[in-house]
Structures are given as C-alpha cells and as structure tokens.
C-alpha cells in the first residue's frame, strides 16, 4: 500500500531558529550602529570642512593701545613671542587700517583717525599641529601689554580638534563593530554546528562531502546577514530622518547636516546613500565569508 502523496523533502540541517535569530538581532544592532558611525563620520567631515574653510589657518592677535605703553614695542615683543611658538607658521603685523575695519560694524566708515584703534597681528598656524592656544594667550597677556587672542577662531580650532577626536572614535567604533560582528558569526557558527554535531556526524557517515554540509548551513547565514543589514540601515536612515526634522532649516548644525545626508543634491546623495547601502552588503559578506571559513575549519576537525 504505497501512498502516492506529494512529499516535500525537509532541510538537511534542522532549521534551529534560536542562534540565528539571535545573530539577526545582534547583527541588525551592529549595522544600525555602523550606520550611525558612518553618518557621524560624514557629518563631522563636512563640518570640519566648513569650519576650516572659514578658518583658513589663521588666528588674529589684537594689541590695544595702552596709555603708558609704546605700541610699536609691544607689537614687536608679541611678534617675537609668536614666532618662537611651536605650531606657528607665519606672523605678520597688519597696518593700522586693518584695525579700523574691525570697528566698522559698530561705527560705520566715519573718520576714526583720532581714535585709539587697536593693532592686529595675523598668525598663520600649522593646521595639522596647532599651538596650545590657552597657554599662548596666557603668555601673551603676561608679556605684552594690551594683547589678546581672537577667541572665536581659537574656539573654532578647538572644535576642529574635537571633531577629529570624534571622527577617530567613530572609526574605532566601526572597527570594533566589524570585529565583534565577526566574533558573533563565529560563535553562532559554532553554536549551530554544536547543536547539530550528531546530524553532521551522520551526514559524514552516509557519505556527504564537507562542502555539501557547509552549503546547507551557509545559506542560512547569508540570509541572516542580509536581513540584519537591511534592518540596521533602515533604522539608521530613519534616525537621520528624525534627527533632520529636529532642527530648524538653514541653521548650521547637525540637524541641517543630517538633512543634507538624505536630501542632498543627487551627486552627493548618491554617494552617502551608496556608503549606507554598503552596510548590508558588508554585513552579508562578513556573515558568509566568516561562517564559511569557520565551517570548513570546524568540519575538518571531525574525522
């Protein structure tokens, strides 16, 4: 009595959900964080660009006329001090007119000849290794009467330095994410294989080849990695979107920049979308390559 029913052959390796589901969640979180880190990198990059373009590697020292001091002497003292400071590339004492320009916003272009206009020194700094502005200002104040450092630009330099630290941190986080993703995949592979040791043994003994077994398991990891990557990127884009909504339009902040990330002119948008979309691809590749390599190595260790 042979029943002629339509059978559907079951999967060779049991579809044990738990370790792979866990991997999906972890990988999705990792991908999300990778997106945030990449977004941060792009934003920081753009911010630094705009700051440094405004900064043009220059700081201004201003020397006020003091009742009891010879302005030219003070200026040369300041010049010598600045020239011997590490991180300073060039020092130029500006004409009297330059100081007058400084007051223009308040006083207009009226005749200021009889006013005690402050004198300016333009200091070109080494952008890669700027001097310690705080120490420099202290020293200037101590040895030159009426001297002060343009704090606004100093602050911008400090911002740039901070942005660099943040971007290094973002790179570090990206590396950390990759490493732990690889570790996760290896552990998941081992878990899946451990859970199926008996099955793998039997498959070997009925004549299955290593590559055949590896293929059965691999396909799961492929799917897992891709799903997780898409999920993570989806969440990431949603986050940038919300972040973009949180700031006013036209302001020069993160909100604006994250809007720029999403709704930029095509040629830029394509680029940032491309980088973001590389996340699921990299996740899939990490999943596939790592699990395949781990599998082959683990399978070899059995007779």
């Amino acid at each position, binding site marked *: *009595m*042979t*029943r002629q*029913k339509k*059978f559907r*052959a*079951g*999967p*060779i390796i*049991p*579809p044990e959900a738990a370790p792979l589901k866990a991997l999906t969640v972890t990988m999705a979180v990792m991908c999300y964080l990778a997106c945030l880190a990449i977004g941060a990198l792009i934003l920081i990059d753009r911010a630094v660009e705009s700051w440094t373009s405004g900064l043009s590697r220059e700081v201004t020292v201003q020397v006020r006329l003091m009742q009891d001091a010879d302005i030219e002497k003070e200026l040369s003292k300041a010049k010598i001090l600045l020239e011997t400071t590490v991180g300073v590339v060039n020092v130029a004492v500006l004409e009297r007119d330059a100081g007058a320009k400084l007051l223009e916003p308040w006083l207009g272009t009226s005749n200021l000849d009889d006013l005690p206009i402050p004198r300016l020194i333009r200091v070109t700094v080494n952008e890669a290794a700027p001097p310690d502005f705080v120490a420099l200002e202290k020293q200037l104040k101590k040895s030159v009467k009426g001297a002060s450092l343009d704090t606004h630009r100093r602050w911008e330099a400090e911002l740039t330095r901070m942005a660099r630290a943040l971007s290094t941190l973002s790179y570090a986080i990206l590396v950390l994410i990759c490493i732990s993703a690889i570790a996760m995949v290896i552990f998941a592979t081992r878990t899946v294989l451990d859970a199926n040791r*008996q*099955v793998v*043994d*039997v*498959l*070997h*003994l*009925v*004549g*299955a*080849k290593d590559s*055949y077994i590896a293929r059965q398991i691999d396909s799961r990891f492929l799917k897992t990695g891709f799903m997780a990557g898409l999920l993570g990127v989806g969440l990431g884009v949603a986050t940038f979107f919300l972040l973009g909504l949180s700031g006013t339009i036209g302001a020069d902040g993160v909100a604006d920049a994250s809007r720029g990330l999403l709704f930029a002119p095509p040629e830029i948008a394509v680029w940032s979308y491309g980088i973001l979309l590389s996340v699921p691809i990299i996740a899939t590749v990490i999943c596939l390559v790592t699990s395949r390599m781990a599998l082959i190595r683990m399978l*070899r260790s059995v*007779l």
Partner: protein
Amino acid sequence: MVRLDSVGLRYGDGPEILRDISFHLRPGSLCFLTGPSGAGKTSLLRLLFLALKPTRGLINIFDKDVSQVNRWELPLLRRRIGVVFQEFRLLDHLTTFDNVALPLRVMGQREDSYRADVMDLLNWVGLSDQAQAYPPVLSGGEKQRAAIARAVISKPELLLADEPTGNVDPVLAKRLLHLFMELNRLGTTVFLATHDLKLVSQGKGAVLHLEKGILKAA
C-alpha cells in the same frame, strides 16, 4: 572485499580494545560477529566504516589501504558501505521517509527518482504508515527498522549492522534477517554484529566470536 591483518585499536591512552584481529570477508559473503557486551564489536565495525583508524595493523577495504585514504576520498568510499548503528542515529528533524532517503539525497539524486524505491522498502520493513512520522514518535523497534532501511536503500556493496534486532520481537527479527539474506543473495557482503544466538543459528553464514578484543572463529 575486506581484509584485516593483525589490527590493534586503542582509544587514546587506554588499554587495547582490539588485539591482533585478522580476517577476510570475501565479496558476497555473510558473516556474524558475536561476543559479550564490551568485547569490542562496535569498535571493530567502526574501523570498517572508516570512522576510526586502527592503532596498528592493516585494513583493506575495496582493495584500498585505509591508512592511505585521503579525506576527500572518504565520502566516496562511505557511499559504497551501508551501516546500521547500534543506537540508530536517525535525524530527528527529518521524516522517516527523508531519513531513509538520506544516502541517496546526499549523493545528489532527485526525489522523483527514488520515491518509489524508498516507499517499497518502508513497506517491506512495515513502516509505510510511519513514512511521514518523525523519529522521536517512533517506537524503539520502528526506529531500528528505519535505520536498517537507511542502510540498505542505496544497495551498498558492503553492509555493516550493529545489533540490528535488539529492539524487535523474534518474528520481526526473522523477517529482517531475511532482508539481509536477500541483499546478500544479490551480491552485498553482509557483516552482522549481534547477541542474538538464535538469529545466528537461523542465518547461514560464518561466525566470528570476539572476546575481550581477541577474535576466535566459532
């Protein structure tokens, strides 16, 4: 077909489980292996289906020296051997049908090509009603029969069976013995390890007796 020459086996640093085993299975022969519990019957079978390498001595299977076999050759050799494990080793996540069909599937055969064969065999061992059942719901004897069906489905050149009737009643045991003898008649070399002396006396074949790792022709 199978030739052993003063084979010895020890697990790790333990004592020698098998000592100076030498025998020859001619193609198409039927041979029983008996011996008390712990004598080393299963270990001897493990050597024959290439799950273990001997510590010393020579094993020739299909005219190949086992110690010279590469890892990639193993699957191809194993496909010519059918094994019934003492503890069955069915895959719990596959139906009885899929379990029995496993050796064919692993060889790359399509389901259409083997469905009828598998169903016929299941019918013969009395499992046609359980074709779509999973091993955990099978009774002990049903599992054993499924394991036997899996071992013989690919009509192997060499059949190794370890205690294949320990969980079935005497009537069924006789029926299964007939299956083995039928296969043997068609050319398969059959090597059966068993405690069941009645089974040994019913089958017409050579008997090897193993005691504490030493072989004694009975």
